[in-house]
C-alpha cells in the first residue's frame, strides 16, 4: 500500500474477507478514504484503494507452490465477492454522503462577500452558502445532481464531506456561451469569472480537472474549453500544470497558464 501511495496513518486490523476503511497518510484527519480487503486462503491476496482518488490495486503473496485449479477458482470467487462488497459499501457510502449533502445544503444560508476567506481572496460569493462559519460549495455532476459539499473555514481550511463523490463533479459559475473555463479551486474560478465573464467550473483539485473536462466535453461538445492551470512551479513535477495540460489535451481544449512578473515568477 505504501508503494502505491496509499500508506495508512495507522495499520488497520484486517479480518478475512471483510472491507476495512482507513485514513490515508496525507488525507485530512478524520477522513477514511482508504479501503482494503484481505483474503488469507488459499493464498494471501489483498485489494486496496482510495475512494478519494478512485484508484484500486491488488497485491498477492508470491509463492513457489503452484496453486491447484480448485484453489485458483476459490480465490477468484473470493476476489469477485470482495469487489461486490466494496461496490456495495461504496454505493452505500456515496448515497449516505449525498443525502447528508442535500440536508446540509438546504439548511445552509446564502453567504455574503464578507466571509474572511472571500475577503482574503478578493472574490465575491457566487452562489455560495454559509453553514456556521464555513462557506459551503456544492459539487454537482454534469447532470446537475448534488453529490457532496466542500467547506471552507474562515482560515481557508478546506474539507469535503466524508465519503462523497468528488471525481467528475464541479461547481459552475455563470452560464456557458462559446467558451468555458476550468480551474482548480473556488477562488481561482471566481477570479476568472470576474475577469472574463466566461462561465467557469471549479474542479477542486488538479486530479479532478480531466474527469470534469471530459464530463463537460460530453455535455457541451462544441464549446471551447480552456483549462486554466495552477502554475505549481515550486512543487516538483509542477502537478498543477501537468494535470491541466493532460485535461486540455484529453478534450481538445485550450490551456492558459498564469505567469508572474519579477520575484513572483511562478
Amino acid at each position, binding site marked *: 500500500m505504501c508503494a502505491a501511495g496509499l500508506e495508512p496513518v495507522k495499520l488497520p486490523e484486517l479480518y478475512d474477507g471483510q472491507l476495512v476503511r482507513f485514513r490515508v497518510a496525507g488525507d485530512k484527519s478524520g477522513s477514511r478514504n482508504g479501503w482494503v480487503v484481505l483474503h488469507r486462503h488459499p493464498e494471501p491476496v489483498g485489494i486496496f484503494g482510495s475512494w478519494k482518488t478512485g484508484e484500486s490495486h491488488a497485491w498477492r503473496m508470491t509463492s513457489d507452490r503452484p496453486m491447484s485449479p480448485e484453489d485458483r477458482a476459490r480465490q477468484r470467487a473470493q476476489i469477485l465477492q470482495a469487489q461486490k462488497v466494496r461496490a456495495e459499501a461504496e454505493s452505500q457510502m456515496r448515497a449516505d454522503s449525498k443525502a447528508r449533502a442535500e440536508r446540509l445544503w438546504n439548511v445552509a444560508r446564502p453567504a455574503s462577500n464578507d466571509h474572511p476567506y472571500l475577503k482574503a*481572496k*478578493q*472574490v465575491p460569493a457566487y452562489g455560495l452558502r454559509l453553514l456556521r462559519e464555513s462557506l459551503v460549495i456544492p459539487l454537482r455532476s454534469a447532470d446537475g445532481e448534488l453529490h457532496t459539499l466542500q467547506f471552507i473555514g474562515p482560515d481557508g481550511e478546506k474539507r469535503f464531506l466524508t465519503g462523497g463523490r468528488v471525481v467528475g463533479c464541479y461547481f459552475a459559475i455563470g*452560464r*456557458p*456561451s*462559446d467558451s468555458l*473555463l476550468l*480551474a*482548480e*479551486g473556488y*477562488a*481561482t474560478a*471566481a*477570479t*476568472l469569472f*470576474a*475577469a*472574463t465573464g*466566461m462561465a467557469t467550473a471549479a474542479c477542486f483539485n488538479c486530479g479532478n480537472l480531466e474527469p470534469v473536462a471530459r464530463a463537460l466535453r460530453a455535455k*457541451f461538445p*462544441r*464549446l471551447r474549453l*480552456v*483549462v*486554466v492551470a*495552477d*502554475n*505549481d*512551479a*515550486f512543487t516538483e513535477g509542477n502537478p*498543477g500544470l501537468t494535470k491541466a*495540460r493532460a485535461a*486540455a*489535451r484529453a478534450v*481538445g*481544449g*485550450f*490551456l*492558459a*497558464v*498564469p*505567469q*508572474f*512578473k519579477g520575484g*513572483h515568477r*511562478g
Partner: protein
Amino acid sequence: MAKPTDANDLAILEGLDAVKEMVDKAVPAVPPPEWPDPILPGMAQTPEISADILPTWLGAMAGAVADSTQTPPTMAVMLSLSVLATALHRRFEVAPFGDDYTEPLALWTLTALPSGTRKTAVINALAGPFLRWEKLERDRLRGEIARVNSARLVAKKRIERLLSDAAKSKDDEEREGIRAAIQREEEGMPAEILAPRLFTGDVTAERLQALLVEQGERMAVLSDEAGIFQVMAGLYSGGNASIDVFLQAHAGTAIRVDRAGRMAHIDRPALSFGLALQPGVLSEVAASRRFRDSGLLARFLYAMPQSNVGRRDVRRHVPIPERISADYESSLFNLLRDRPAQPGKARVLAMTDPARECWLDFAQEIEDSHGEGGRLESISDWTSKLAGAAARIAGLFELAEMGLTVEEVSQSAVERAVKLVRLLIPHAQAAFSLLGTDAADNDAAAVLRWIQGSNRPEFTRRDCQKAMEGRFRNLDRLVKALERLAHQDVLQEFKRSNKGAPPSTCYRVNPKVLST
C-alpha cells in the same frame, strides 16, 4: 503571499486585466492538425504515380523513359496507358457482370505539364514502336497495295470508257450489254487496301470519321500539341464545336454520317487519346461550356504531375536500356499480332468473381462520395465514369500481362487498376480546378477572393453573406459555395454557440490559402 501559483494570485498581484489577458492567450493543448494542401489552381500537391503500377514490361519501359528524360513518372504512366489502349481497343471489351454491359478498352488520358518538360521526348519514346510497326506493315503490304490500286485504276478507266460507249449507243440491246459489263467491272474491282495506321497527331472531326472507316473502326490521337482541342472547339467549323464523333468513339456507340459527298457508317468505333499539354491549354479548354456539359472533359483521365524543371541534372544522361526497349517493342508487337484489318466482333473478357467484387466495392465507394454534399460532388461528372475507366484499365492490364489469349480479368488486375484510378482522383480535382467551373465553382472562387482580400483566418457565414449580399441573394447558393471550398480543403466548418440565440455557423480558413 508566499508563492503565487494561480489566477487568483495573479489578480491580486497584477489585476483582473492580467487574468483576462492570460485567458485570451490560451493556446491549444494539442497543436491543431496540419492542413492539407488546398485544391486550388496551381496549389494542389498531386501524388506521383510510380511506373511499377503498370504491368511488367510496360512499367519497366515507363520507368526507364521517365528516368532517361528526367520527367515525372506520372506522365510516362499515363501515356503508356494510352499506348496500350491504342494497341488493344476495339478488339477487346470488358464485361464486369459477364452480360451485355461492356466497357470498351478505349482510354483518354491527358497529362498537363508546362512547356519545356520533355513531353515530346516521352511520347516519341513510347509511341516509337507504333511507327516501326506501321512501316513494317506498309512494307509488307506494298506489293499487294500496288497490285490492288492498279487493278482498281484499270477498272475505273474501263468503266469510264464503257459509260462513254453507253451514252453514244442508240441500240437498247447494245446499251444493256454495256451496262452489264459495267456491273461486272464494279463487282470485280478489288476492295481498296490501305496501309494500317495506329494513331494520328491531329485530326478534324470529318477526317476522324474517315480514318475510323478506313482503319477498322479504331484510331488514337497521341500528341503533345493542343490542336485537337482547337479542332473540337470548331476551328474548321465556323466556331461550332464539333465533338460528337469524339464522344461516340469513347463510348463505342454507332456513328452514322450521311451527308452530301460524305458517308461514314461505323458500328463500334474506338478512339483513344494520349495527350500531354500545357496547363494553360486546359484553362482555354474550360472556356467552352460545351466541352464540360457534353461530358467530353469528364472522359479524360487527368494527370497533373509536379514539373521537374529546375531540379534536373543536366550532366546526367541515362539512355533507355536496350533490353527494356527491346522487350517493350516486342511485347507491343505481340499485342498487335493478328490485328484484323477489318472490324469484327470484339472479344469480351468477363471478370472473375473476386475481381468483380473488388470492382463493385470501388464503384460503390465512388457512388457514396459523389452525391449531393459528397466529397467528390464537384467532379461527379468525372467520377461517374471512373468505375468504367477502372474496368477498362483492368482489361488492358490483364491483356498486357497475360497475352491475347486471356479469357477473364483477374482480381489482381482490377486491384491494380483501382489503385491507379484512386491516385488519379486528386489529379482530376487539380485539373478540374483549372478547368472550372460550374456555378458553385465560380461562387466558391468569389468567396475565396473575399477571404484572401480580407485575410481572415476565421469568419461566420453571416459575415460572408453580408459582405457578398450582391452575389448571394439566397443562402442556399452561398452554402453550396462554402461546401465546395470545404471539399477543396480551403475551409473547415464549425459551430459557435451564442447566448440565448441559435449557434453561428463559422469557418476556419486554411492558412496556406492566406499565405499566398
